């Protein structure tokens, strides 16, 4: 395993107080604290070149886990080893080899043109001139940055800025890229562009990518494997398809037909029907779609068949429900 996380735990003490003036004064004199297990005994591993999607509701502990993986925060207990390095203990050595994009924060210097931020990063990461020029040119072409380079960061739109952020995180050609909600707030076109770019990067440079997001299309498009975190605990670790098949047992089947002689006998529930089509909710564990189609084909002439799958957002909702998040 390239990245190995064992029993990672992080607690936070947060100040709490009840409403009202009296309680405010009480809290001032003697503050009350509540301990929150932000990350609770999580273990998983990531192979080199893998894209791992992190999902979970807000406050689940995704970002905290990412921050510990980045070497920013020290775990209370448990270990995290990335290619034989302990991210927190050897922070300087470790972070030279990772790239990070926090979707809600900016790493570019606000007042200066984008290109100057790039130059500064070149100096920070001690990137050799030749390599820098090459990587920079590639990123400019792929992310379409030509017209943005001389603009101060504060004057960029969110989509433009995010493209620049991604370039900034990749100038030093890191082995691992952390993307914490990279598509947050972006429009559809920017999202598609960003995903395409990330896919290509992973394919060409074999960059290991760790992605957190609330946009399930991001996960569907990018991650072959997902880790679901809720209330600080690891709930699921495996392929996306497995979750899908587990939570996607019901599908909607629409059959459009001509000359129906008599409705066949099926176990699944018919939601809608008229003399041209029928809509059936199929529980694929009880009855297969093909058997229903076969039954219909015997009694009528089928013109078209549509299968509606439960979309990924609903699957995740069901999953959260099952785990009571």
């Amino acid at each position, binding site marked *: 395993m390239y990245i190995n996380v064992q029993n990672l735990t992080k607690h*936070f003490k947060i100040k709490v107080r009840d409403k009202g003036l009296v309680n405010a004064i009480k809290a001032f004199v003697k503050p009350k604290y509540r301990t929150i297990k932000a990350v609770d005994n999580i273990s998983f591993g990531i192979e080199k070149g893998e894209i791992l999607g992190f999902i979970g509701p*807000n406050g689940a502990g995704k*970002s905290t886990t990412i*921050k510990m993986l*980045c*070497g*920013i*925060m*020290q775990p209370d207990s448990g270990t995290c080893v990335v290619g034989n390095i302990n991210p927190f203990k050897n*922070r*300087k*050595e470790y*972070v*030279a080899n*990772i790239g*990070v994009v*926090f979707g*809600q*924060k*900016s*790493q570019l*210097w606000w*007042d*200066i043109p984008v290109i*100057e931020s790039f*130059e*500064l990063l070149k*100096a*920070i*990461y*001690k990137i050799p001139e030749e390599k820098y020029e090459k990587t920079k040119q590639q990123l400019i072409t792929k992310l379409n940055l030509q017209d943005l380079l001389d603009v101060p960061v504060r004057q960029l739109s969110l989509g433009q800025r995010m493209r620049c952020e991604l370039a900034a995180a990749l100038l030093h050609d890191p082995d691992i890229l952390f993307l*914490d*909600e990279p598509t947050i707030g972006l429009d559809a076109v920017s999202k598609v562009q960003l995903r395409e770019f990330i896919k290509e990067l992973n394919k060409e440079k074999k960059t290991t990518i760790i992605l957190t997001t609330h946009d399930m299309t991001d996960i569907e498009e990018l991650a072959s494997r997902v880790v679901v975190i809720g209330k600080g605990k690891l709930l699921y670790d495996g392929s996306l398809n497995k979750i899908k098949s587990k939570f996607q047992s019901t599908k909607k089947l629409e059959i459009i037909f001509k000359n129906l002689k008599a409705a066949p006998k099926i176990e699944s529930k018919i939601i809608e029907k008229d003399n041209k089509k029928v809509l059936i909710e199929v529980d694929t564990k009880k009855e297969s779609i093909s058997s229903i189609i076969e039954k219909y084909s015997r009694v009528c002439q089928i013109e078209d068949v549509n299968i509606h799958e439960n979309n990924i957002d609903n699957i995740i909702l069901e999953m959260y429900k099952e785990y009571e998040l």
Partner: protein
Amino acid sequence: MKGYISYFKTVLLSGLQYKTAAIAGICTQFFWGFLQIFIYQAFYAGTGQNTPMDFEKLVTYIWLQQALLTLVFVRIRDESIAKSIKNGTVAYELVRPYNLYIWWFIKCIAGRLAAVTLRSGVLVAVTLFLPAPYNLSLPISFGAFIMFLLNLFLGALIVTAIMVIIHSIAFFTYDDKGIATVIYNFAEILSGTSLPLPLLPTIVQNICLIFPFWLIGDFPFRIYSGDIPVTDGLKYLGLQIFWVVALIFIGAKILKYAMKKVYIQGG
């Protein structure tokens, strides 16, 4: 090293963009300078001969203080550091392969240098040619001037080291404003900002000497005007170096400790 130098240049250059702020600052500083000089003139007129500091030296002190305000005042903070801790952007600083202490140090000192570069030239150029006794005098000797520059440089290091300590506190208290204000108010008196040290009662002066604040501005200004002889300058130069080393050591320790306990705010 190259990274630190580049960053120094970047902060310095972007600091030089704020021309309007500099013009406003220059106007305020002229106003304050004259106001103080007139008040002291009124006081001096009433006290006769026995003053702790010559009027010309006092005027020179005031103009130097106004010209170099953005370099030597403790009260001038870098808002962006406190803000980055408050909103969690500091996370980005922690994923870079540099020493955060040095980084912040450079940020603070480059910001101060940019501000003082924009302001001091005009103030010095104008006040040098004001009619006596309202003018900035030339340094007492060439040796004193060299010593003044050296002391001023070390003073800038002292004030920057203090600022980094104040900013590091934000990691513990979420907002460093409260604790910073307390330090500022003490510093105001102890640094000679509210009254030049020689004008303070002896007992207060002795207290001031315990702390590093007077070594930031008060001491170099008095070397410049000859209020403190150059020979004594050497002795205090040693003290300045001691404080620079001590404050950097303390600041680096605090920040290192803070980074272990750090909680990054926000999602």
